[in-house]
């Protein structure tokens, strides 16, 4: 089943790579939204609902952890799984992200297989 995704990263190159990795992981994407930081991502979610959010941590304006915390108050994001994709690989960062509400965590550099392992379970059969 095709899904919609929101990819949040301040690097446009990384957004393209994440989208390609999702497709390589076997996901059919009907629409992909992009945002360069957490604040832009919140704006996207004011008008659109997505099935999956992939989010970097270190970004300007609003970082990924703050974005995930603020999602709780966004009607369009209720129940939408968030998977963090970041260079921050310490256990403390993983715990912070999962405590904030993220459902998965992928460390850069990554393979499409690692993306698949984290993303498929959180989609709950939507894929």
């Amino acid at each position, binding site marked *: 089943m095709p899904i919609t995704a929101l990819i949040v990263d301040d690097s446009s190159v990384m957004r393209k790579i994440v989208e390609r990795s999702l497709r390589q992981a076997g996901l059919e994407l009907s629409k992909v939204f992009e945002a360069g930081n957490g604040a832009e991502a919140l704006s996207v979610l004011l008008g659109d609902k997505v099935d999956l959010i992939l989010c970097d941590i270190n970004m300007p304006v609003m970082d990924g952890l703050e974005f995930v915390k603020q999602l709780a108050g966004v009607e369009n994001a209720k129940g939408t799984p968030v998977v963090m994709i970041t260079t921050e690989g310490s256990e403390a960062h993983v715990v912070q992200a999962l405590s904030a509400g993220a459902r998965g965590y992928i460390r*850069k550099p990554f393979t499409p297989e690692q993306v698949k392992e984290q993303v498929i379970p959180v989609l709950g059969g939507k894929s």
Partner: protein
Amino acid sequence: MSSSKELLAAGGTQEGWAPLLELALREVFELMLGSQLTLPTNAAEEMPKEVTAMVGLAGKLCGLVGVHCSGKCAALMTSKMLGVPLDKVGADMSDALGEISNMVAGNFKNKISGLGDGCMLSPPTVITGTDYSMYSLADSPALEIRVMFENMLIVISLQIHS
């Protein structure tokens, strides 16, 4: 909180980090570009500096990680990373090199025992062109890793400020 000096004392010498830096670099190229790096055959080849991507380290470990290569090499790295033909690589090159330096630095710091979350990365900076000189507050000589990517030299440097 430990300083760079204490980390060096606990982990041996700065040279002891060279294998970790090289491993971090190789993993980025294998996983993100699908490329195996090889060893250089000409040890005297001058460090390329047409493109230099840098990421700062701050906290328990202070310093600078740099990726230095030729423009042709940077374009090919971008092409492989994005999976696009070489002639389609344009404005993405600086962004791609910044991300590569960011991943090398992040992967490297994640491999240092005892560092935990006590080291932060700066946003990447990318310099293109050769007519520049760089001054660093680092108080020890830069550690350099030399590797070949598709027969082109890439130098990774690590400067530590203890």
